[in-house]
């Protein structure tokens, strides 16, 4: 009972903090609203990855591909098809989800390091397509000459194009829906089955659970939410470039999830916030920020393998 209460309380705290970001973040030294939006969007991606990594126990190292597909889907829709933010989000998500659903059957039979290796390698296809097909995607320079469009709701028109606060709240609404769906799924019998697969795949198989199909569905859900995040990311920057698809981006998502705590629902969001803040500070102070990010990876693995929330939880229980 008590743990239920603390869970409820921490949920309320998280949502309150998120809802008030535009008020408190600019007052933090070095903080500005775009940083908050970036942490929110990347945090959504890391949480989506964690649906697979932390709750299904499947090691995907190629989520940047679907993140990038979502981003390009949104950007190209607005640039070439219809200047509509909502449609961009929708099509971006659809593109990433369909690609994941098609690749899924090729990889669901693999496990562990092999799953990781194949997902990394598959991610590169989309990178090369974005890189080479430059008259449509803008190649290495990225997709430019488009901006997110004002949002037409039934009664009113929200200018997310020029107000970064309005955009933050749009991102937060999308975030809330996606996170709500994931939380609901994890609490459903389906989600419990995923956790059972994580804990003991062989036993789950003997119980008659179609493991491969469950992993496939979990993979598609995870990639769908990642492509939502990717679409939001493109809208946030009014720009997409092939680096959103590159394998180092996948690694960033994994380190965010691990840093925050893979076994906790909110962990990856916390990890993303720390990572984004750190990257912002490093890249403004040193040209060699890549070394520091690398060192950061090493230190996290050696000293924080359970992540921040995992450590806190462990300290509380002992």
């Amino acid at each position, binding site marked *: 009972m008590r743990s239920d209460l603390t869970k409820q309380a921490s949920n309320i705290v998280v949502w309150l903090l998120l809802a008030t970001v535009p008020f408190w973040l600019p007052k933090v030294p070095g903080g500005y609203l775009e940083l908050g939006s970036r942490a929110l969007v990347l945090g959504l991606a890391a949480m989506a990855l964690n649906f697979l990594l932390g709750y299904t126990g499947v090691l995907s190292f190629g989520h940047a591909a679907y993140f990038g597909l979502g981003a390009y889907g949104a950007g190209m829709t607005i640039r070439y098809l219809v200047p509509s933010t909502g449609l961009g989000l929708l099509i971006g998500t659809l593109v990433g989800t369909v690609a994941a659903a098609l690749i899924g059957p090729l990889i669901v039979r693999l496990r562990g390091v092999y799953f990781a290796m*194949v997902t990394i390698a598959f991610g590169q296809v989309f990178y090369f397509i974005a890189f080479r097909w430059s008259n449509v995607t803008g190649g290495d320079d990225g997709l430019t000459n488009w901006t997110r469009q004002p949002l037409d709701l039934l009664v009113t028109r929200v200018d997310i194009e020029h107000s970064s606060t309005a955009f933050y709240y749009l991102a937060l609404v999308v975030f809330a829906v996606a996170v709500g769906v994931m939380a609901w799924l994890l609490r459903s019998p389906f989600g419990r089955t995923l956790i059972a697969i994580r804990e003991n795949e062989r036993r789950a198989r003997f119980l008659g659970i179609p493991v491969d199909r469950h992993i496939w569905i979990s993979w598609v859900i995870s990639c769908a939410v990642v492509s939502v995040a990717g679409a939001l990311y493109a809208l946030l920057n009014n720009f997409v470039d092939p680096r959103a698809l590159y394998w180092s981006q996948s690694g960033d998502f994994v380190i965010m999830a691990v840093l925050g705590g893979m076994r906790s629902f909110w962990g990856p969001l916390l990890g993303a916030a720390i990572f984004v803040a750190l990257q912002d500070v490093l890249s403004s102070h040193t040209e060699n920020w890549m070394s520091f990010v690398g060192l950061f990876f090493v230190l996290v693995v050696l000293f924080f393998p359970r992540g921040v929330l995992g450590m806190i939880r462990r300290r509380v229980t002992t």
Partner: protein
Amino acid sequence: MTQLVLFNVFNGLIVGAFYALMALGLSLILNLSGVINFAHGGFLAIGGYVAYALIPYVGFWGALLLAPFVTAVLGLIVERLLIRRLYGRDPLYSLLLTFGLAFMFEDGTRFIWGAQSLPYQVPAWLLSPLSSAYFFLTGYRLFMVAIVAIAVGGLFLILTYTRLGVRIRAGTLDLETVSVLGVNVRWLRSLNFGLGVYLAGLAGVLAVGQLGLQPTIGSSLIMPSFVAIIVGGLGSLPGTLLGGLLIGVASGVTTVFFPSATEAVMYVMMAAVLMVRPRGLLGEEGRL
């Protein structure tokens, strides 16, 4: 036209030989220790840069001999200090650690030697074409193929006939039993890691003569090596060799007919192999 195709097939073979050399090292480490060494490309780059730094003192041939050893020693240190702590843990952690190392190696080489491409001196007599009709058959290219062939042959001889090689192969199948039989598994893993990194260093020394020396050379070669392992078959070294050569030739041939798909074609091959034969061309049953 025939000449163009021949040229690109040959080119593909050379590139494929690099992929294979690098992928063999990756495969060795992966098979015995279950570690995907993301820093393998970084070791390759370091091999190239060390050779570049050594040339003024020991000459081209000395660098060719020494640089891979220096790289292997660095690999042993990394294994001892960092990677060893992660054996037996979730493979996620070694993957993340070597991923971070890859960043550090790439940025480190950029910090020391600069981002621009450095000239790498190859003896002039190796660069001249052997015949005017087949202008692409320079001595250096044949030389590279020969060195790769010697290295691969040597590797298979070590694995087949030496005590170390037999233990590595046995450990790949069942490390626990090997340990119970009195083999020092810590040493075995270290030496195996060193051997893998040695191959990366050798690939680096050879590659810089062909592709030029720049910090990103490692990250551009690591993905094809992954594909080589997957196509060739997980757990099979001959498969890895075959996979490397196959994707090299495939991208070479694609350059002739559809240049913009040069990189993508190997991933298409990978998808096709996974669809028809998930364990890879020469992969063993039940290793997934």
